[in-house]
C-alpha cells in the first residue's frame, strides 16, 4: 500500500474539526493523569507536558497493531510501520511549516538536536577563531554543546547579555555579532523566566552578517504557531515530551541546503546506502542523520500529539497561555513579598518567582503539600540564575489543561508558605 492511499496516513493529517471553544476544563478531560490524580494542580508543563489519552492510545496501539522495524522489511507490517514513521515526519513538517519533509530529522529531543548540529555541522563548518554567539537566557542544553565544541575546535563562544528588564539586550547582541560569527544559537522562549525572545530581529541581523541561526523552540513550540519559513531560521529544535507527546522523541529542523552539505553524525544502520570495509556511501538527508533503529513509536505518538494541538488550534493555545500568563502575573504581583523574575517586554506561560524569607526549595515542598506541583531550583539555567542574583526560584508554568483556578490554588499555597515562615 502506498502512502498516498493509506487511510491511516491521511487520517493523521486531517483529524476531526476544531472545537468551537477552548475550554481548559473540558480539555483536562482528555488527560487521564488528572483523573488518576484529581487533587494535583499541575504547574510544571515547562519541564514536561502531560499526555492526552489519544497519544497514550497511539503509542499502545502502534505496538499492538502496526509494530515492526522501519525502512527494512518488504513485508506489510514493516511497510505500515515505515508509513507511520514517515507520516510523522510530514506531521512535524506541517507543524513547523517546513518547506520539505526531508528538512525534518527525528532526534531524542531538543538536546540531541542541538548536539547533532554542534557535532556534525560544527567541525565541518568552523575553524579556529570563528565565533558562536548565544545569550544569557539559554538552557544548559544550548550552552554546554557549544562549550564542548569551543574546547575541541578553539572557536570563541560569546554570550549576549540580557537587559535590566530580563529581555535580550538587542543592541548588545548586535554589537557582539561580528564578521567571524558563524552561528547564533538562541532560545525562542526562555525556559527559566518565560521571556519571549526577539528571534525575528535576531535572525535578520545575524543573516545580514552571514551567520546561521539555531532556535531552541522547546518552550515556544508547545505554545505558539511556529513557521520556520517565515522566521527564516537555519535550524529549529523542539522536544516531543513538551508538546504533549512521548518522551524520547524530538525534532531537528534544518534548511535542506545545510542538512545536505553537513556530514553525517552517528554512523550505523539506516543512514547508509552501501557499506564495504573500505568505503561507505550515505543516505540522503534526513536519513543520513538517523543512524540505527529510530523511535518510530515515539515519532508516531508525537505526530498524534501535534495533531491534537492543531485541532485545539495553535492560535487558541497561544491566546489561552497569554491569558493565564497575564492572570498569573497579576495575582502574584498582588502578593506582598513575592518577586517575579523579569521577562523583558513579553512573557509567556512561565512565572519564575521568589518569596521573601522562603527558599525556593522550602516553598516547593510546602506547595507540594498543598498539591501544587511547581519546579524549584535553577531550571537548568545556572548562568541565568547567577545573573539574576538568585540561587533558585520557584517556577510555575502552564499547559492547555490549566485554568485560572490552578493559579488561585498556587496563590493560596504561597500564602500558606508565607504564614508558616512568618511564625
Amino acid at each position: 500500500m502506498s502512502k498516498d492511499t493509506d487511510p491511516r496516513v491521511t487520517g493523521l493529517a486531517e483529524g476531526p474539526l476544531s472545537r468551537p471553544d477552548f475550554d481548559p476544563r473540558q480539555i483536562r478531560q482528555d488527560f487521564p493523569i488528572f483523573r488518576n490524580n484529581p487533587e494535583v494542580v499541575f504547574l510544571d508543563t515547562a519541564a514536561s507536558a502531560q499526555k492526552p489519552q489519544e497519544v497514550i492510545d497511539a503509542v499502545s496501539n502502534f505496538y499492538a497493531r502496526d509494530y515492526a522495524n522501519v525502512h527494512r522489511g518488504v513485508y506489510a507490517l514493516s511497510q505500515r510501520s515505515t508509513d507511520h514513521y514517515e507520516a510523522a515526519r510530514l506531521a512535524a513538517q506541517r507543524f513547523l511549516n517546513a518547506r520539505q519533509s526531508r528538512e525534518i530529522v527525528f532526534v531524542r529531543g531538543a538536546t540531541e538536536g542541538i548536539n547533532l548540529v554542534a557535532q556534525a555541522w560544527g567541525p565541518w563548518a568552523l575553524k579556529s577563531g570563528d565565533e558562536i554567539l548565544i545569550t544569557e537566557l539559554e538552557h544548559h542544553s544550548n550552552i554546554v554543546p557549544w562549550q564542548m565544541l569551543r574546547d575541541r575546535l578553539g572557536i570563541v563562544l560569546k554570550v549576549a547579555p540580557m537587559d535590566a528588564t530580563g529581555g535580550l539586550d538587542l543592541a548588545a547582541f548586535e554589537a557582539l555579532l561580528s564578521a567571524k560569527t558563524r552561528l547564533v544559537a538562541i532560545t525562542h522562549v526562555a525556559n527559566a523566566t518565560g521571556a519571549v525572545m526577539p528571534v525575528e530581529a535576531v535572525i535578520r541581523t545575524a543573516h545580514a552578517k552571514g551567520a546561521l541561526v539555531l532556535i531552541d523552540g522547546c518552550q515556544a513550540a508547545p505554545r505558539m504557531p511556529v513557521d520556520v519559513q517565515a522566521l527564516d531560521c537555519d535550524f529549529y529544535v523542539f522536544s516531543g515530551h513538551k508538546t504533549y507527546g512521548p518522551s524520547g522523541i524530538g525534532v531537528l529542523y534544518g534548511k535542506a541546503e545545510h542538512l545536505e552539505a553537513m556530514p553525517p553524525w552517528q554512523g550505523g544502520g539506516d543512514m547508509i546506502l552501501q557499506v564495504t570495509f573500505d568505503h561507505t556511501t550515505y543516505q540522503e538527508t534526513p536519513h543520513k542523520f538517523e543512524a540505527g533503529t529510530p523511535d518510530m513509536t515515539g515519532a508516531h505518538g508525537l505526530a498524534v500529539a501535534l495533531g491534537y494541538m492543531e485541532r485545539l488550534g495553535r492560535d487558541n493555545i497561544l491566546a489561552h497561555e497569554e491569558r493565564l500568563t497575564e492572570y498569573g502575573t497579576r495575582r502574584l504581583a498582588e502578593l506582598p513579598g513575592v518577586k517575579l523574575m523579569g521577562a523583558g517586554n513579553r512573557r509567556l506561560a512561565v512565572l519564575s518567582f521568589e518569596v521573601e524569607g522562603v527558599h525556593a526549595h522550602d516553598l516547593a515542598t510546602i506547595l507540594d503539600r498543598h498539591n501544587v506541583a511547581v519546579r524549584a531550583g535553577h531550571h537548568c539555567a545556572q548562568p541565568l540564575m547567577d545573573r539574576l542574583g538568585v540561587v533558585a526560584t520557584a517556577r510555575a508554568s502552564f499547559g492547555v489543561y490549566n485554568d485560572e483556578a490552578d493559579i488561585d490554588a498556587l496563590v493560596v499555597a504561597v500564602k500558606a508558605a508565607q504564614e508558616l515562615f512568618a511564625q
Partner: protein
Amino acid sequence: MSDAMDLRDLYQDIILDHGRKPRNFREQEHASHTAQGHNPLCGDRVTVYLTVEDDRITDVSFVGKGCAISTASSSLMTEVLKDKSLAEAKQLFQSFHANVTGGEPPSVDEALEDDLDRLTPLTGVKGFPARVKCATLAWHAVEAALKSGGKPAEPVKTE
C-alpha cells in the same frame, strides 16, 4: 488539616529558628579542615570550617546559602559537634544519617544521646524524600573535610 500537620513536622519551630538565625555562621581564617558541599538539585552551597586540635573539634562553623532545612541542619550540626572528638563526631554523623534516611541507627555512647536528641527535629525529613539531602549536606561536607585531612579538592555533591 493533615497536610499542614505534615508540614509542621518538617518545619518545627527550632528548624524555622535556626533557618532564620543560623548559629556559628562565620568563616574561620585558620581552620584546620574545610570543605564545600553542593546540592546540584537546588543549587544550595555550604562551606564548613573545622578547627581540630589533638583529635578534638575545638571550633566548627559554616557559611553558605541554602533552604531552611539545610541551613538549620548546618547550624544544629555546628552546635553538637563543638568539643567532640573525631570518633564521637563520626558516631553522631552515622546515627543522624540513619535517623533521617530511615535506616537502623547504630548505638551511640550514652554521652552523645543528648546531642542526638538536639537533632531529632530534623528527622521530619524522612517523610519528604526529596529533602533528605538538604539535611545531610553539611554533614557530608564535614565528613569529606575530615577524611581529606584538610581540604578536599572537589566540593562534596549530594548527587
